[in-house]
Each structure stands twice: as C-alpha cells, then as structure tokens.
C-alpha cells in the first residue's frame, strides 16, 4: 500500500505512529510537497495483522532482540524467561511494527 497526494501527485511519507489504543494504531503520513497530511486508524484485526509481519513502522533502528517476535506474542510467562547475560534487552520489542507494503516486499523473489 502506498499513498499519493491528490494535489501534488507526490508519494506521502511516514510522519509518525501514535500509541496503541484499544487495538487501534494511529499512523500518520504527510505530503512532502504541500504538507497536507492524514492519520490512518487501523482496526484491531488490521493492527494484529501488521504486528505479525515482524517489521517496524518507520523503519527499524535497532536489530530485534533474540526470539523477539515469538516472545512478544506468546501469552503468559515462561517459568524462567530468558536471562540476559548482557545489558541489552528486548524492551519495547514489537510494540508498533508496521509497514503497509510488506506484502510486496515479502513476495519479492
């Protein structure tokens, strides 16, 4: 999925994602030419679908922590959740992964 500004025929760029609210994720886009923007509000199923893709909205800044996807989604707690022997943690892991065009990218040969 890509968005194009009707006025300028410019592709809209990602402008930020808000807090998850009752399963809905606000994702904003803006036109780089005229500054017109909009916020897309996903429904809970769409949010889950997008989260399950395993990519991060706005791009990944740090590599995912070990088993991040699985541990983020697995309900309940392990008897002994993996113990880190270093200072890095998976904090914030998988909270707002999103990108609309993942399918196309995933299907690329």
């Amino acid at each position, binding site marked *: 999925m*890509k*968005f*194009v500004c*009707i006025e300028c*025929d410019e*592709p*809209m*760029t*990602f402008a930020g994602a808000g807090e998850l609210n009752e*399963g809905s994720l606000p994702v904003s*886009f803006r036109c780089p030419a005229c500054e017109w923007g909009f916020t897309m509000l996903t429904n*809970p*199923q769409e949010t*889950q*679908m997008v*989260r*399950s*893709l*395993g*990519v*991060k*909205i*706005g*791009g*990944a800044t740090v*590599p*995912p*922590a*070990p*088993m*991040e*996807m*699985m*541990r983020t*989604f*697995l*309900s*309940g*707690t*392990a*008897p*002994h*959740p*993996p*113990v*880190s*022997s*270093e200072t*890095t943690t998976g904090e914030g892991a998988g909270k707002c992964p*999103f*990108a*609309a*065009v*993942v399918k196309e*990218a*995933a299907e*690329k040969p």
Partner: protein
Amino acid sequence: MTKTYKEIQGDGGSDVAGQIAGLQGRLRDRMAAVKCKIAVMSGKGGVGKSTVTANLAAALAARGAAVGVLDADVYGPSLAQMFGLRGRQLTYDSQGVQPPVTASGIKVMSMDFFLADGKTPVVWDGPQQEAFAWKGMLEMHTLREFLTDTDWGELDYLLIDLPPGTSQFATLTDLLGKPDGTVVISIPTAVSRLVVQRSISMITEVLKLPVLGVVENMSAYYCGGCDSERPLFNGPEITDYGGTPVLGRIPFDPRMAEASDAGTPFVESHALEPPAAAFLTLATELKTRVSPAPA
C-alpha cells in the same frame, strides 16, 4: 493522472524490503555454520518422528558429529522431554539464545523452554476473532527465530523435527531453501503408507524438492526378554515409496518409549541393544548420503 504503484520508489519511510532482507541475512549467517540441515517429517501423526529424531541425533553424536536438534512442532513440542531438558533456564547474550545441551552434547531448542509448565498451551496474544489471518505469520516467525536466534555454533547436523503434515515443512523450506536432506517417517500399515506417499508427492511434485528416503518405524516388535523380532503390523515389507527408498527400519520396543519418557534417548540408555543398532545403521546411511565433510 496519478503516479502508479510501481513508479513510486521506496515505501514512505519504513524500508520494509530492507528490514526483511536484514532478517533473511541474519538467518543465512547463522545457518552458514551448519553443514547439514536435515528435515524429519511425515504426513502422518504419531508415527515416531520425534523418537526417530532424538535417537538419530544421539546416534550421530555417538559417531562424533556435532549435532543440534530443532523442535519445529511449535504447538506440540516433545523433544525437551525426550532429551530430559524440560525446565532448563535459557540465557541470551550477544550471540543469541544459548540452547540447552544434553550430557552427550546435543544442542536443543524447543517451544517447551518458553512455556510456564506442562499444562500451558501455546496461545498467541491478539484478537482471537479471525485469528487465522495472522497465526501463520507467527508460526513462521517462531521457526525463523528458532533457526536464527539460537546460538547453534558450528554443527555437522541440525535435525529439524516437524509436526505432522506438510504445512510446516513448506514454511521451513520457504525460510531455508532446500534442506540438505529430508527424511520421511512412516509405519508399515496401509493407512500410514497412503498418507505418507501423499506427503512425499507434495514435496517432490509440488514443492519440487528431493526426499532422501523413508524410515519405517515400528517395522517389527522387538522383545528384549527373548532377544527376538516378531511381526507387529501386517504391511508387507517394501523397499520404496513410489521410488523413494526406505533408508532404515526401526523395530518397536516398549523400552524405547520408556527411555523417551525418562528423558534419555534409547540409543544412549540401551546402546548395545539391537534397536539401538538400527539407529546407528541409519546414522551411517545418512552420513553416506549427506556428509558434513567438505567435498
């Protein structure tokens, strides 16, 4: 006229293609240290995939190979129990998650290590309505992370024990490409042979991947008391499944189930018994067909 989808470069800032390429690259890097990736599968449930995987791993390790086992049965993990590793604490560091290791040096990764106790099922957080739409993605990611994020180190063999059916096998090959060997487990009954033959056709004709061969488990009843083999099922002995060779036959021995329950592969606990020899022969057969030695 607006720009078309293809005319627009990039994806507005998330670089999804780059993120996916990154995940694939990490998987490739990890697997580069694994010489032979062997999928153990069957269209049929309960025929002994996990038992064969555990004992084949033990037989390969006994022959000096560096062996890892991945329990790819996400919803019904059994290998932590069969290797006596349930309840092991996982640790992670910059190399990933350290897999629990058996006394004989086999590295094991399983969903079991992430579940609270023996009663806890695998449940994914999320709206349960229409969950089919995203569950498959999580199964794929779990398999991908088990492969990528486990610190397998250098392995001669990584045995991957799949759940019954062909769906997880297809997911595995989507991630890995062609395994170095695919072993299919069956038992000598018409029902099993029918279902297993179909799963072989799925692999060879639809997925266009080779199958190394079939292992017929429970090929006879081995009585440890009188050291003899007797018939168990009525299937006539066959040498191939529509051209796919039978690589080995493993007899039924109640002590094998007991060994699995007790957490030590039969090959280790009953090393001198004939059914253990059947696994050692199978390991030799596998090693001649898929060798970790450089060509």
